[in-house]
């Protein structure tokens, strides 16, 4: 169904208010959710339906517990993960501007960080290269050759500044994002074959069964290796828990590199733009009209929504959101 963009924004903010967030916090979370929603990414307002994301009553302000010129570690103090990761993003931008590189991690958050593309785009918009990893002790994904959920969906993202839109690669290391399963379940749809197992280890296309079983890591042993690396970097390294669905101690890691400390900033952007042009104009497989850059299709969808003022949203999902906002 079609919804007015402004209405979607208002309803999202209302739902967040209902979940207990103040207006500043709501703004941050809403920006991150709508970044995804307007780009057709499944890390959007689906997070607000059902149990949603009630603000944790025992949450306190995030605190920097370790710091050096290029690196810092934050105790999230049970503040919402998006707010903590947004703070980390600002910190790495600051560090990378000063010293050339910044790495900031956190532990002690429990919610999903949403689309990592948001954070690396924020970094790339400042002319810096952004890299982000997110993990959680929540077990959804099996290693290659296994049907036992050990890893989280462990996404990673890269943001690269160009002379125009930044290139944003945002990918889970699982064969489908967890919210892709929730979305399919909400819409009463099956998922593609070869994505996951039920509890007994049998292949299934039922999203609910995969949620109680395991998602596969993407593309065999390479995807599985990447899943393991992300779990190490965004949990063990930052003092968060791992492989324990009962734990509320999740972690993330954000990094920024300042290209002007290697080549000149303009040279970097110029060269990446040259690369983009070459890729876009390269020969295509039969029947393929366009080779898209990572994040490009999402950006097109976003611009379309901005221009028309309308957003296409799945009906059950929107009703869930209206419920969460208490307007229905």
């Amino acid at each position, binding site marked *: 169904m079609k919804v007015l963009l402004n209405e979607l924004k208002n309803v999202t903010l209302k739902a967040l208010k209902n979940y207990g967030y103040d207006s500043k916090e709501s703004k941050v979370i809403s920006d991150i959710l709508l970044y995804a929603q307007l780009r057709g990414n499944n890390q959007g307002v689906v997070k607000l339906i059902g149990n949603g994301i009630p603000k944790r009553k025992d949450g306190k302000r995030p605190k920097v517990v370790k710091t050096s010129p290029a*690196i810092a570690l934050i105790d999230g103090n049970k503040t919402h993960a998006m707010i903590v990761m947004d703070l980390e993003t600002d910190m790495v931008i600051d560090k990378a501007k000063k010293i050339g590189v910044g790495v900031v991690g956190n532990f002690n958050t429990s919610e999903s960080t949403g689309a990592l593309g948001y954070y690396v785009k924020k970094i790339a918009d400042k002319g810096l290269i952004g890299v982000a990893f997110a993990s959680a002790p929540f077990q959804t994904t099996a290693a290659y*050759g296994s049907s036992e959920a*050990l890893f989280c969906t462990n996404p990673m993202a*890269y943001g690269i500044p160009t002379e125009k839109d930044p290139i944003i*690669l945002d990918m889970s290391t699982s064969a489908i994002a967890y919210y892709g399963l929730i979305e399919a379940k909400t819409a009463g749809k099956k998922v593609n074959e070869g994505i996951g197992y039920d509890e007994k280890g049998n292949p299934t296309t039922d999203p609910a069964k995969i949620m109680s079983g395991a998602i596969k890591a993407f593309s065999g*042993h390479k995807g599985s290796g990447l899943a393991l690396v992300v779990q190490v970097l965004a949990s063990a*390294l930052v003092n968060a828990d791992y492989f324990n669905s009962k734990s509320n101690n999740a972690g993330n890691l954000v990094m920024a590199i300042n290209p002007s400390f290697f080549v000149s900033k303009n040279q970097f952007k110029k060269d990446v733009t040259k*690369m983009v042009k*070459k890729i876009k104009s390269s*020969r295509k497989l039969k029947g393929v009209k366009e080779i898209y850059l990572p994040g490009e299709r999402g950006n097109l969808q976003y611009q379309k929504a901005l221009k028309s003022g309308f957003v296409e949203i799945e009906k059950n999902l929107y009703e869930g959101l209206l419920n969460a906002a208490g307007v229905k």
Partner: protein
Amino acid sequence: MKIKIKELEELVRKVLQTKYSSDEVELMLPVIMFAELSVTKSHGIVRVPAIVNKKPISKPEVKEKTKVSNIIDGNGNPGMLVGGIACNEVMSLAKEFGIGIVGTRGSVSSSGCLSYYVEKIAKEDLIAVVMARAPGDVAPYKGLERLFGTNPIAFGIPADKGPLIFDMATSAISWGAVDNARRNKQLLPDMVAVDEDGIMTNDPQEALDGAFLTFDNSYKGYGLAMMIEILAGVLPGADFLDLGEGDEWGNLFLAIDPKTLSSLDEFKTKVRLMIEKVRKSKSIDGKDIRIPGEKRLLLRDNFVNRGIISVDEKVFEEINRLEKHNNK
């Protein structure tokens, strides 16, 4: 033919010494031997004649960029020498400042097996990420031009009982494997390459005329291949998409001291626990789950213990001749 590893090493040392200083030889030799012993023969002693026959213009230069980053200009030297220098540089930066980033450009050949470098760095209790861009073989998703190199990325993570090593090409197959299949008149596996019309092929010659695919034949692998082209090509000022003149390789070396974020002992214990948990997770075929890097290191360790290895006779003879000729 079989040969004592010590003898082989001595021969390679002697032949390299005919063109390079002792310091330079001791940087390249272990990279070459690592590949030979871990049965990544395409980066082993077969590379020696080209390294010896191609005389570099001048010595590689280390250019300090910031406190935590350097660029190494290879000045036409072999990638294994430039890589060896970069590896040492990044370790000393990370030990002093908690993090180091080193880019390389101007190498005229591959830096070799990235597993070698990340193992070396991780054994010094540092987290390593190493990437390499190479001349183009791989088409973007839905394209059919050879734009990206096989662009590998490797991670080394310190752990109890030895580091976790994960080394993957972002291509579905390496150039060496395709070339090998062509010479031995063998077919390629399915889903690794397309011919010049974009049709899937198992014929190595058709694959060399067409393009290789990314490891997943999808947007994630394509995105990763592009990120490596940017981070190990554009960022250090090396070539990208072969838009420059001649073949040029580039690298990015990143090392992080885990002590900046965590306790080293705790971190290493956790990583080992994670590895063992993955290994013993519920298996589909009843076998232990494969841990990245272990097979390669085990092969290497077994050869080292036995002290004897089989090498390609033709390659060995060629090196022998070269040594005699150059030392005349």
